[in-house]
């Protein structure tokens, strides 16, 4: 039961946020897009607030929830740098990440987002299979 409860609540919170944000502000929540607005647009206040909230909410381990799996040992900076470059460049070229394409895009049955999600899931699964 416990193993279902946390992911269920987590997913419902994510879906609820995407829905409330959509029905009030009229936009999709895409983290890679919001971050690039913060970096490269002139309208910086709102993306800043979203990302500040995200970091605060996402650091809530222990306050609201108990960790079932420990964090990995800190990994090589090079692995993280290569990963970050690919995620940064790839999400911008592909126009979205797990939130924008994966959650919001599939929720509205966007063919682009469905293809994008299948593609990044496939390459991620292959990458993990090779690395492990």
């Amino acid at each position, binding site marked *: 039961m416990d193993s279902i409860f946390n992911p269920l609540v987590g997913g419902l919170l994510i879906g609820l946020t995407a829905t409330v944000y959509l029905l009030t502000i009229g936009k999709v929540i895409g983290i890679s897009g919001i971050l690039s607005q913060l970096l490269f647009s002139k309208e910086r206040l709102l993306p800043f607030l979203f990302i500040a909230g995200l970091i605060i909410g996402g650091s809530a381990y222990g306050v609201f929830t108990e960790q079932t799996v420990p964090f990995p040992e800190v990994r090589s900076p090079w692995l993280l740098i290569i990963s970050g470059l690919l995620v*940064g460049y790839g999400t911008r070229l592909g126009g979205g990440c797990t939130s924008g394409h994966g959650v919001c895009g599939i929720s509205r049955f966007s063919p682009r987002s469905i293809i994008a999600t299948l593609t990044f899931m496939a390459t991620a699964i292959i990458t993990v299979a090779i690395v492990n």
Partner: protein
Amino acid sequence: MYAFITLASGLVFGLGLAFSEMTNPAVVIGFLDIMGDWNPSLIIVMASAIGVGVIGYAIKNKRIKPLVASTWQVPNLRHIDSQLIIGSGLFGIGWGLSGYCPGPGLTALTNNPNEGLYFIGALIVGSGLHFLQNKATQK
């Protein structure tokens, strides 16, 4: 009003990531490791998030405009092009390498700064490269 909704959305979205343990790259890699010791919990996360999202879009389709903003700004692109496929493919490789996608990477800045700083630093450089490339091709 915009500021309040945006900040609250970020907070609750982040809480959702923490609850679902997507902020922990070990959980994400466990989910992607279908050939190994598979941890399926993120299927529940995706399914419940999308389930609520589908209801959200059904409500949206019955309304002329959002409650606060004056127009819908939902992307309506439909074409499948090589940029979509190549970009998503590269993103997936990066995601599989570290277990971080952009949201959990940002939360790693506080949860696990020894990793988050490298990942987000490189993510900003990667996004910047695309931004510059875009600017150059638009000239």
